[in-house]
């Protein structure tokens, strides 16, 4: 079971890692980087998957840690220097994993109660986890390969097959079958195997939990009449014990998968429309907010005043010495396009909306835009991590990229960036600059 859950958890970690890397670099790209724009929902998908996989890690990691909990209490706790390093790497792995998914989940609620910066720590810890995961898989590889398939893990009675020294000399037998000392040789083989697999105090308690006598012993069909001596309790036989172990195993796995399915189903409605009616636990709800769309940064947080977006508002476009200035009325008078694009937040929520505005490439043509040129976007907001951002040519040249003035059939609400905001395909919400002030060609 540790292998079954381990490979699912490992897969979830890798999914989180690669989607996280994508999110990191699309926000802070290296100069040579370009990003695909042919799937407008790409970032909504990658970040939605990132958060869903992160949430799924909770039942998976708790299940995985439960299966190996007895190993925490092995005696002696340290058997040598290599063993010390291995245990230390596991402690680092477990601590980093628990902290990573916890701060990630807290961050989805836009809450930062951490004594460290969220984004940088979340990024660094992802490498700690992947590095520790590689070491852990390396150390446990013989066991992982030995128990990869169910067919090769259990015998005909459904009892776990211990590793064979001849077949798998590399296996750390201690982690599968511990020392035998206290297991009576007179016990039936399956009982002995179960007892042998139980190492340490908690391991023995685990075996004791599973060995509920009533469930293991075949009951007599008829109760003895009053006054008669009850027949001796029959000893459990191998198939009965195997059936009990199978029931425990199945119950455990069904529990893990049901809780995984539950949290993902009741959470993902914030980004996946078919599941929106089930949304009970996500920090956002589709359709909720001004223009029927959630927001992530209010005008108050950005310190946008009525005066800044009133009659004095101007959108400035620059390319070297060439400068074009537009009033809001002039922007409204330009040819307008309608596109369907999502706002896809780094926190995982996303929603597709109908945007109306001026095609970005048309607007940039007013200052003589050339193919392959990137631009810098500046917001009216007084300060903020994303007040000034850049946009690669793949986004500038995309016909779906708009300077939007309308959203879902209404004038853009000030909370969504009135008078004008950026909307482009396959981009995180933080880069869809609100309260646009300046667009300047940089290359």
């Amino acid at each position: 079971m540790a292998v079954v859950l381990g490979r699912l958890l490992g897969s979830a970690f890798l999914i989180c890692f690669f989607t996280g890397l994508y999110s990191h670099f699309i926000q802070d790209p290296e100069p040579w980087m370009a990003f695909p724009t042919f799937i407008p929902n790409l970032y909504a998908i990658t970040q939605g998957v990132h958060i869903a996989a992160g949430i799924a890690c909770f039942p998976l990691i708790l299940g995985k840690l439960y299966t190996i909990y007895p190993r925490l209490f092995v005696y002696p706790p340290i058997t040598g220097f290599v063993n010390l390093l291995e245990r230390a790497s596991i402690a680092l792995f477990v601590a980093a994993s628990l902290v990573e998914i916890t701060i990630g989940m807290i961050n989805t609620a836009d809450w930062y109660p951490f004594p460290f910066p969220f984004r940088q720590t979340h990024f660094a810890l992802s490498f700690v986890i992947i590095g520790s995961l590689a070491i852990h898989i390396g150390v446990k590889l013989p066991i992982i390969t030995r128990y990869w398939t169910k067919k090769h893990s259990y015998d005909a009675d459904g009892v776990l097959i211990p590793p064979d020294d001849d077949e798998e000399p590399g296996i750390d037998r201690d982690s599968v079958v511990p020392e035998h000392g206290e297991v009576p040789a007179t016990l039936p083989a399956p009982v002995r195997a179960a007892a042998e697999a139980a190492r340490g105090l908690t391991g023995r308690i685990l075996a004791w939990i599973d060995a509920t006598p009533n469930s293991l012993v075949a009951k007599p069909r008829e109760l003895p009449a009053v006054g008669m001596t009850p027949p001796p309790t029959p000893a459990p036989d191998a198939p009965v014990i195997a059936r009990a172990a199978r029931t425990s195993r199945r119950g455990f796995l069904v529990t893990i998968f049901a809780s995984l399915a539950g949290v993902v189903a009741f959470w993902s409605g914030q980004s996946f429309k078919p599941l929106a009616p089930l949304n009970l636990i996500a920090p956002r709800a589709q359709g909720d907010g001004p223009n029927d769309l959630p927001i992530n940064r209010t005008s108050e947080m950005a310190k946008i005043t009525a005066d800044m977006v009133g009659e004095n508002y101007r959108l400035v476009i620059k390319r070297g010495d060439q400068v074009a200035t537009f009033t809001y009325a002039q922007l409204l008078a330009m040819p307008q396009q309608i596109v369907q694009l999502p706002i896809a937040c780094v926190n995982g929520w996303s929603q597709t909306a109908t945007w109306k505005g001026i095609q970005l490439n048309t607007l940039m043509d007013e200052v003589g835009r050339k193919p392959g040129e990137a631009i810098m976007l500046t917001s009216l907001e007084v300060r903020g991590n994303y007040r000034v951002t850049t946009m690669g040519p793949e986004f500038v040249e995309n016909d779906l990229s708009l300077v939007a003035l309308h959203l879902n059939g209404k004038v853009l609400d000030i909370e969504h960036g009135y008078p004008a905001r950026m909307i482009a395909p396959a981009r995180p919400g933080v880069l869809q600059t609100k309260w646009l002030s300046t667009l300047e060609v940089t290359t």
Partner: protein
Amino acid sequence: MTATASRPSSRRSSKRSPTTAIQRWRIGLIVLGVAILLLSGYILLTTVKPTRYIGIVEWFIAAIIIHDALIAPIVFGAGVIVRRMGRRIPLAVLAIVQGGLVIGAVFTIVLVPEILAQRYAHLFETLLPFDYVKNLGILWVGTLVLTAAAVVGYLLVTRVRRARRG
């Protein structure tokens, strides 16, 4: 003579090769893991101020304590109590009940940060729009109803099977 001598050696090598391959993968993975860990140290050093490291260590220790000394013993203790107290109850029924409790606990773990955030975070329009305490209650009730239905279903199926067997 040559052929006879080569046979055991080839048999040995064919038997050893999977292990050798695994050993190579093990070494490769461990070296890769150490390299990535060093990279993570570099990232931490260059992006997070050293004054914040103590906070990260505190959270690491807290995570280990909360799991190993709180969550795991509670789950473990609940397992012991349910299994050993329920001696006259079929194992499958106990497993279903345990499963229901664990599923409810996982919902609780996921919802607690949002319930706390509603109280302590800087809230704004559209953030945390639900009554999460109420929704947690709905999920617990739903889980308990489904758990009870699964127990009843199991008991009915086993009764029908027994009746058929005579």
